[in-house]
């Protein structure tokens, strides 16, 4: 079709002769430019933690939202183009609300993730509003009747269930650190410490209560809770008090 192989990346819905969709792959690349986000699922619940890049002292940190609530029992952390993330979270909110209207019960985390991924695929055709893939990865965390659950979605619309996941600029380093220390019987405090420690290790700036964001979905209450800067400060203080690693 095209004379030159490099031309195949111009269309969002044409496969290259090697069977690749370049625009989707580029979208996945875009996530690696985003600030780091990580999620840890244990028996007690699921923790979401993100780095916020405060590019200027004149920027109001609270106006950057990288963790968003979807329903009372589900939240999502994002990395990549946060405008795309907001848009996906919005559709997820509509889906979970509709589910409550239709069936009088909460949507499961997996179905919610699936609803997000359905939207991820709707690009490129003339009917859809989106003309390109969504350049964002989401970590969808929640608790449903089956217990805590954590899913990772990417721009291809694929989703996988994970225990721990790091996405964004420092995902490789963060993922290695998490894999090393994670075990599924960790308590909430330990999970918080692990997340804070990992962010601290991979972030360029020093961690402060305003440049990181935490959220927890509790397995017992099934309620999503976004941490206030004061609550984050407690975690950071605890971290500072711990003896430095070997």
């Amino acid at each position, binding site marked *: 079709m095209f004379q030159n192989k490099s031309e195949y990346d111009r269309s969002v819905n044409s496969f290259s002769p090697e069977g690749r969709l370049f625009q989707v792959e580029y979208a996945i690349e875009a996530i690696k430019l985003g600030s780091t986000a990580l999620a840890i699922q244990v028996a007690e619940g699921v923790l979401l933690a993100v780095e916020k890049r405060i590019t200027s002292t004149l920027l109001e940190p609270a106006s950057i939202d990288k963790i968003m609530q979807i329903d009372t029992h589900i939240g999502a952390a994002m990395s990549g183009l946060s405008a795309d993330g907001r848009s996906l979270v919005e559709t997820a909110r509509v889906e979970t609300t509709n589910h409550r209207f239709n069936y009088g*019960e909460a949507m499961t985390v997996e179905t919610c993730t699936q609803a997000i991924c359905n939207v991820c695929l709707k690009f490129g055709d003339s009917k859809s509003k989106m003309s390109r893939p969504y350049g964002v990865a989401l970590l969808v965390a929640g608790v449903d009747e089956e217990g805590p659950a954590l899913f990772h979605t990417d721009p291809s619309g694929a989703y996988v269930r994970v225990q721990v996941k790091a996405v964004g600029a420092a995902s490789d380093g963060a993922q290695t650190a998490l894999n090393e220390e994670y075990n599924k019987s960790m308590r909430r405090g330990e999970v918080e410490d692990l997340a804070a420690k990992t962010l601290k290790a991979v972030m360029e700036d020093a961690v402060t209560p305003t440049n990181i964001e935490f959220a927890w979905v509790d397995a017992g209450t099934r309620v999503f809770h976004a941490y206030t800067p004061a609550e984050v400060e407690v975690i950071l203080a605890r971290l500072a008090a711990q003896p430095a690693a070997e």
Partner: protein
Amino acid sequence: MLTPAVAPIEAKKKEWSPYTDNGGTTLAIAGPDYAIVAADTRLSNGYSISCRDVTKLAQLTQHCVIGTAGMQADRAVFHKLLRTRVDYFKYKYGKTITPTALAQMIANILYGHRFFPYYCFNVVGGLDAQGHGVVFSYDAVGSYQALPYATTGSGAQLLEPLLDSHIAQRNRTQKNPPMSKDEAIAFVKNAMASVSERDIHTGDFLEIAVITREGTQIITREADGVERIKLGFD
């Protein structure tokens, strides 16, 4: 004043009504570890009995049964619709719909037809996540409520006080413990037989769906090889 020479032409001929009531009575009871949904099988057409053997029950999931009185044609379509919605739920969400979720869905469907309602008066019985019996009762436009027992249809007025007395037992000085499954089945047979004595639209055969953890057993269907429960006399 002049009187008109010709009587004014009648404004409009009475329109044909797309509704008909085929009668019948449904009954549902929520027990501690069971639920029962029962209905007669008579199909009435005015004072005639069109057919003695038309079911009013539909088993929607392993643990949920709906019973519908009212118009038979609407019921057939409504049950068909519910069956497809239950199947679709399973495809979409990867799990069987719970009776509680189904109850809300039914209300939405009925209300969706608010301005051309299904002439269906439903009771839904099933087991919740804890294995306790649940019963929901509806009007034709989707008003619904969870209740310990419910009855709809042509014999509901006769049945309701009997259920109040035997199940709710609000005005009894000496209260009996909740009925066991077998006691409830016996009670349902007696209660429906009583209704068929006085309501001409109720009778012929009785079908009882008994829902327990193990699943749903429908008593009286010939296919099960169980003897049919005959209401009243030949």
